[in-house]
């Protein structure tokens, strides 16, 4: 198949070492487009004790080798660029800070908007490239009326990654290419097999590529000094024991609280100011209104009036009908038709057009709600 492309410039393909970006590169190269493969090395150079050596995920040292061998098989130039410092600054620091703030981060969001379609895109433009392609499952097109560059859900609903791409600006969307966005994952693997790519059977990468197993151990290593134990309290103010640090909990979490209660208790809020974990019963986890900050709008330039949307509040969430009310600055209030369970501050809320559920209207970061007053 042929991709709709009007570029005659070079295309930089961000190759993570996985099957999706390998096929993205292959599809472009097969069309005879001038492709250059780029792998961002986000890990420190190998040391014998490096934890990175112990697992294999996106952009890990083993994956850098995989990307290199795919590029070689495709006969395209390929470079491994050192992104250790930038990844640390833009992704890892955000990730740890969010947890310290009692939030649940989406590290893929800044990795996409600041690294792959931020710094890599601008470097690629420096080399004379006009586009950056990735193996993301998402689709871009252009509004025939307004001319805006739009982001749509992928053809494969189970693999759709538009949730992680909502932060892209018009300039970034104009320059990005998702060559596998219109494929089912199984088709991607079939193409990889047909092309004899060594990564064809490689398992899908984890959601958080830089955290080996347990994010809590990772946080302890990264920011142990800033994490302090504190009190677990219920919404009525009664203390229920001690916690190891608010960074180790996520709203909705039930396990690992270490407290006994006749009713199952869940984390319903994390207060970094008082260093308290607030617990409550299941009914206290349900919220109808969510305020969203740092909103990036894609389908429209401005939100002038309330709009009916389908809003997704975590990656695995089925978008739920809501009304998006524009607030001052870049904030939006989402009023869901039905209350939603375990809305975690720090997670992205991405809203899709109620009349065109494939179309990303925009998205932002969920703010901490005032739960205790409920």
């Amino acid at each position: 198949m042929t991709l709709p492309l009007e570029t005659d410039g070079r295309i930089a393909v961000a190759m993570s070492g996985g099957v999706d970006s390998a096929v993205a590169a292959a599809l472009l190269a097969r069309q005879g487009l001038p492709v250059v493969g780029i792998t961002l090395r986000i890990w420190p150079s190998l040391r014998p004790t490096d934890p990175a050596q112990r697992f294999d995920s996106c952009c890990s040292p083993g994956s850098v080798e995989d990307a290199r061998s795919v590029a070689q098989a495709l006969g395209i130039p390929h470079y491994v660029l050192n992104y250790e410092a930038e990844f640390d600054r833009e992704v890892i620091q955000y990730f740890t800070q969010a947890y310290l703030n009692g939030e649940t981060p989406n590290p893929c969001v800044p990795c996409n908007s600041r690294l792959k379609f931020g710094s890599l895109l601008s470097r690629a433009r420096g080399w004379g490239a006009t586009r950056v392609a990735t193996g993301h499952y998402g689709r871009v097109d252009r509004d025939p009326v307004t001319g805006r560059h739009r982001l749509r859900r992928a053809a494969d609903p189970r693999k759709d990654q538009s949730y992680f791409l909502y932060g892209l600006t018009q300039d970034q969307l104009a320059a990005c290419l998702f060559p596998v966005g219109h494929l089912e994952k199984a088709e991607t693997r079939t193409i990889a097999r047909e092309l004899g790519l060594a990564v064809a059977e490689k398992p899908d990468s984890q959601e958080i590529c830089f955290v080996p197993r347990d994010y809590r151990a990772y946080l302890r290593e990264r920011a142990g000094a800033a994490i302090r134990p504190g009190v677990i309290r219920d919404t009525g103010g009664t203390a229920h024991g001690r916690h190891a640090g608010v960074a180790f909990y996520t709203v909705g979490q039930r396990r690992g609280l270490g407290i006994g209660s006749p009713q199952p208790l869940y984390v319903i809020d994390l207060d970094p100011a008082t260093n308290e974990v607030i617990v409550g019963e299941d009914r206290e986890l349900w919220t109808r209104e969510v305020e969203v900050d740092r909103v990036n709008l894609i389908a429209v330039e401005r939100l002038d009036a309330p709009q009916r949307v389908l809003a997704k509040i975590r990656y695995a969430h089925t978008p739920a009908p809501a009304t998006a009310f524009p607030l001052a600055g870049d904030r939006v209030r989402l009023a869901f038709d039905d209350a939603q369970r375990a809305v975690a501050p720090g997670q992205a809320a991405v809203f899709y057009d109620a009349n065109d559920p494939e179309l990303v209207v925009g998205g932002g970061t969920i703010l901490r709600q005032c739960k205790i007053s409920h």
Partner: protein
Amino acid sequence: MRVYVDHNATTPLAPEVLAAMTPYLTERFGNPSSLHAWGQEARQALERARAAIAQALGAIDKDTIVFTAGGTEADNLALLGVAAAQQARGRHIVISAVEHHAVLHTAAYLARLGFEVTHLPVDAQGLLDPDEVRRAIRPETVLVSLMHANNETGVLFPIGRMGRICRERGVTLHTDAVQSFGKLPLDVDGLEVDLLSLSGHKIHGPKGIGALFVRRGTTMRPLIHGGTQERSRRAGTENVAAAVGLARAAELMLQGQEGEAKRLADLRDRLELTLMAALPGVLRNGHPTERLPHTTNLAFAGAEAESLVVALDLCGIGVSSGAACSSGSPEPSHVLAAMGLPRERVDGSIRFSLGRGTTPEEIDRVVEVLPPIVERMRRVNAGLTPAAGVRA
């Protein structure tokens, strides 16, 4: 047209070198330690190679040459070997802040073992004041290790003057001459050094071979233990073919050395001047004259080194940002940082190193290709999006 201007990283093997090596990779395969004819043949070749390297360094005694697996091993042998042998006398060593990682990281390893390491500063042009060496030497100092020519900037240290200081104080002096060997006249007596490292693949010789000159009377212990090869200073069956190749490569470098240095210096100056004329905001890093003839390190304001390397490679031009061994490391060049250059200048600096194959046409190609790339990067970094479809 492809242009390789990264000869400080490595050089292509000279055809004459390959021809000299081939018999020792094929029919003359003997082990130099064997008694029989095969062994004797190999032994002869090895010792001839040793004598040729000694001669290239102005050393009369060929047994001052210890073959190693490269410049890095030679540096390791010098530092660790002297430190191990002389630690009873003292546990202090002196190096400069701009040494190659083979010295820098070996010294750091010694520091972990309890040695004290003094890093001498350089000035903004990369020069080292010999008085700094004088001031740094203490009664417990056992080794001073200072490079002859810097791999990133080409800047030369006045090793001869430092040699006299060390000799007066009875301290062993090592110099890493990996980048200068073959390119400049080298005389171990004139330089008054006790130890000198050199490498094969920087002079159109094979990879995997280097040597350490060890002046008679220098107290040093081996790193590699086993047989009695290399007069028990480096165990292991000798790499005869590579040693022969190294010797042949050194001979070729010495033939017409002066003329080649002049030719390369002219090409380098042409490269610098044409680039500076074509582009504003180009600065040379390092001293303008106290340097190797074939190396230049240039800062391009508003551009980023790694991107320049990629953009040039996509146009068939091979250069490097800093040392090849540290490419892809998050730290900025320790050499340029030690010169006190601001971070933006360090981040926009690339090294061009010319070599035997470099022609005027190649230099013209570089100065034709590079300015538009830098200008485009400056536009992008200034936030201007290039029009779609614009190609290099």
